[in-house]
């Protein structure tokens, strides 16, 4: 009995901690940590700085990472601190510098390769998959590849069809890769540090529009040894009526949708996937077994998407627990348009998540 109360209280406080985004310090008397705010950009920058300080084998390579201070200022200040040997500006040659990064990882260094956006990673995708992901397996453990490929993924605003694709599903389908998608500043710090320390190739999918967003961070998060486990999702908001899974920017939208749903008496559980591969199937299934309804949310194209995999896994493992068909919210099945009104239509909005969740709740067997 006491345990349940303790759990509920902890849940509410957890809820409060993650909910007050950008509103300012919230007095959290129950915790010893202060409610410091940090942008995702600063979170990534600090993570890179700390890992580079801790391990001389870590270096950064990519376009404009050095003198330009980073195309999105993620690597700001690092060239001054670590020098041009460890913060390497490259020509605009993704296939070449990705291959060079993977080769350096073969030899034992720990490269962090930045793609200005993941759209350009397609020029280098052979090296990510065939040279990095598969090497440990093909060599039966002789050649490990401790590399991180990071950069903004998915849509920005008004950048057009060739600059807006989400690659989570593509990379998420490859055995040998680990694929992470942070949402908050805490995610960004913990997951990037974990990725750099990981002995396997990690694809780290950031989001340009999240870089400037602030999130509260605990003292624990700010510690240089802070690390989040790869393969574990986070329940951002506990609920009992419907499970909403999301990653990256869609987590924020899902939390907003959950607020709206709460006013209508629907208590949504929002799961921040954090890890696309390995997918935290046990957390997702446990949640669906509790709520009996599933809505998956992603920005990427619908066919063969992350949501498709989540739906399949839930149907396979928790079929008897479902009270409604699974719902997938994804980007529209079109190349991204430029005009603002139809671009808005091309990506999930809060109202789409609300509508799908209501559908999941009002449908009967």
């Amino acid at each position, binding site marked *: 009995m006491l345990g349940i109360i303790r759990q509920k209280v902890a849940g509410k406080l957890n809820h409060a901690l993650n909910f007050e985004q950008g509103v300012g310090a919230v007095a959290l008397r129950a915790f010893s940590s202060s409610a410091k705010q940090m942008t995702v950009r600063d979170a990534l920058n600090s993570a890179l700085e700390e890992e580079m300080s801790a391990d001389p084998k870590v*270096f950064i390579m990519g376009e404009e990472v050095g003198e330009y201070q980073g195309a999105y200022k993620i690597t700001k200040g690092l060239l001054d601190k670590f020098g041009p*040997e460890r913060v*390497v500006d*490259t*020509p605009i*040659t993704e*296939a*070449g*510098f*990705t*291959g*060079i*990064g*993977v*080769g*350096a*990882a*073969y*030899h*034992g*260094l720990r490269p962090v390769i930045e793609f200005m956006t993941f759209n350009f990673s397609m020029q280098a995708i*052979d*090296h990510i998959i*065939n*040279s990095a992901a598969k*090497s*440990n*397996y*093909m*060599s*039966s*453990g*002789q*050649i*490990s590849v401790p590399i991180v490929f990071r950069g903004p993924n998915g849509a920005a605003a008004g950048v057009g069809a060739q600059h807006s694709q989400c690659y989570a599903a593509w990379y998420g389908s490859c*055995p*040998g890769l*680990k694929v992470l998608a942070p949402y908050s500043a805490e995610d960004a710090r913990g997951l990037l540090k974990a990725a750099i320390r990981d*002995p*396997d190739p990690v694809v780290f999918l950031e989001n340009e529009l999240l870089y400037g967003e602030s999130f509260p961070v605990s003292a624990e998060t700010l510690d240089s040894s802070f690390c989040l486990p*790869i*393969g574990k999702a986070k329940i951002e908001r506990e609920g009992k009526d419907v499970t909403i899974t999301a990653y990256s920017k869609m987590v924020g939208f899902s939390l907003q949708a959950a607020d709206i749903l709460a006013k209508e008496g629907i208590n949504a559980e929002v799961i921040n996937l954090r890890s696309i*591969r*390995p997918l935290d*199937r046990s957390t997702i299934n446990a949640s669906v077994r509790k709520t009996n309804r599933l809505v998956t949310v992603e920005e990427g194209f619908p066919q063969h998407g992350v949501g498709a995999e989540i739906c399949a896994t839930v149907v*396979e*493992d928790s079929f008897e627990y479902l009270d409604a068909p699974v719902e997938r919210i994804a980007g529209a099945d079109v190349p991204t348009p430029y005009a603002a009104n139809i671009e808005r239509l091309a990506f999930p909005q809060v109202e789409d998540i609300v509508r799908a969740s209501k559908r999941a709740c009002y449908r009967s067997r």
Partner: protein
Amino acid sequence: MAQLTHRASALHKSIPAVLFAARGLATASTSPITVETSLPFTGHKIDPPSRSVETSSQELLTFFRDMALMRRMEIAADSLYKAKLIRGFCHLYDGQEAVCVGMEAAINKKDCIITAYRDHCIFLGRGGTLLEAFAELMGRKSGCSKGKGGSMHFYKKEGGFYGGHGIVGAQVPLGCGLAFAQKYSKDESVTFAMYGDGAANQGQLFEALNMAALWDLPAILVCENNHYGMGTAEWRAAKSPAYYKRGDYVPGLKVDGMDVLAVKQACKFAKEHALKNGPIILEMDTYRYHGHSMSDPGSTYRTRDEISGVRQERDPIERVRKLILTHDIATEKELKDTEKEVRKEVDEAIAQAKESPMPDPSELFTNVYVKGLGTEVKLFHYIHLFLSRLLTTIVLEFLL
């Protein structure tokens, strides 16, 4: 074709008076013998090294044995493939042995080599064993990649051999990455990134070369020009088949790749250059007797006369045999005995490899990650699901 035979006849004319080493294999000495390469080197934006190569009777005998071993291994692989003990792809190196053997004589195990899929002999040169090679080809546990790689994915990290790559051209940026790491670690070692005339046109090669030149990486790009990219002759694939010049601002050297001493000299020269001045390209003029792979007879795009012509006039093993005999280092019989020994070694390794079992089924899911994650967990998960479903079905069937 006329060009190929002309080069060979030059060999006979150019052997000058030399120091005579002790006779017989048993007393092979290390005292220096100087031999002239059959052809001069041609340089691009660099002064080529001298044609006089220092060697010794011991070294020449080692060259002979090593190349004979590699030749025998590849021919045996041909038979094993036809007997269906080797599956999938099998790209043979016979004819090109002088390139990897000459290279090894100029470098050490801290230097790195990376190549494409014609990798069996290079693997041997880096310290791989015949057993590891044959077992891998036959998909057995004792293979260098425990049977999980196959012909194109041989590795020997402790010997500085980074594979074994199936994607044409990808190994060149990877090799420049190895060189990057060597420079970063202040290793004083170099990387030889090997590729063929077919791969020489790949864009990523030029991307990597540009960066290697910009950052002065100790990378040596070695084009093994066997004149055919699969079935396409070099003149049909490259507007400029002068591969040693394709680096433009990067110096290059053209080398007779059938002359093991020329290869040794060029690699020694290239290593010294790369450590001081950054990348250099070596074009090895070589030849493969087999087709592109075991599914290619190799005769639809070149004449049998051409193949036999090269074998008669430029074979790398015959060249060293003549050198050994001319310098009285060993007798014909002794060399034939070496070849018999080598044959026996290969046969024994094959027999041993055949005894090696195939990998355990559980190996399907190992090494996906360095520390098992995701896949291994899923295996148990699915086995659990399968078993529970099976049990449920059985129980239901029993009840109904």
